[in-house]
């Protein structure tokens, strides 16, 4: 199974984007993003707090739908899922 992780803005600069990640059965959204983010400590710290939870301002989407931070730890990742992780928006 493979999922795509897309980081945006500052998270993209620190961690890259369009990352094809192998996913094990039973992997959670939080677990997957944590594993990818660990490749760069500054990137990890930008997204996760000391307890390994998503920071309050971080926005997470699965296949274009918002996933609440609290639910990300129990949301399973399936084959071909697209996970997006980004900071608060600032368009316009």
């Amino acid at each position, binding site marked *: 199974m493979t999922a795509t992780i897309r980081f945006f803005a500052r998270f993209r600069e620190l961690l890259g984007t369009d990352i094809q990640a192998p996913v094990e059965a039973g992997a959670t959204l939080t677990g997957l993003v944590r594993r990818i983010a660990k490749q760069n400590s500054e990137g990890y710290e930008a997204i996760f707090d000391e307890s390994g939870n998503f920071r309050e*301002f971080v926005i997470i989407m699965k296949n274009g739908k918002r996933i609440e931070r609290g639910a990300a730890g129990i949301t399973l990742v399936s084959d071909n899922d697209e996970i997006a992780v*980004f900071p608060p*928006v*600032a368009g316009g």
Partner: protein
Amino acid sequence: MIAIQHEDVDIGALVRNAKEHGTGAVVVFDGIVRDDDIRQIELEAYEEVAVPELRKIAREASEKFRLLHVDIVHRIGRLDIGENILVIVVSAGHRKEAYEGSRFIIEAIKAGVPIWKKELTKQGGRWVPGEHPHGSGQPGYHIS
């Protein structure tokens, strides 16, 4: 026309094209790269989510303010000072609806469409913080 694109847009042509039957007022909002001691800005979007979200905002504004026509063009990439970032063109029967519909759209975009802006300065770069830190980025969340 709802678009996220690199190219600039012809505001005069959009206004002419917005004059649907029944139009008495057109309001244009043009957001511009301001010279805040920067060289350029760089814009990035999660396009696959941002474009449908812009469409949804346009639809909501049209219903709520009886707009006859809505264009939203948000640019991405590197832009110089003075360039257009975001052009919103709305038409309505009367001015009140046109002004209020236009304002609704810009506030909704700022609150919830996944687009980011980086100021490129002589010293490097700085990501512009969102105006709505608690609640931003959530599709369907709009200021009312």
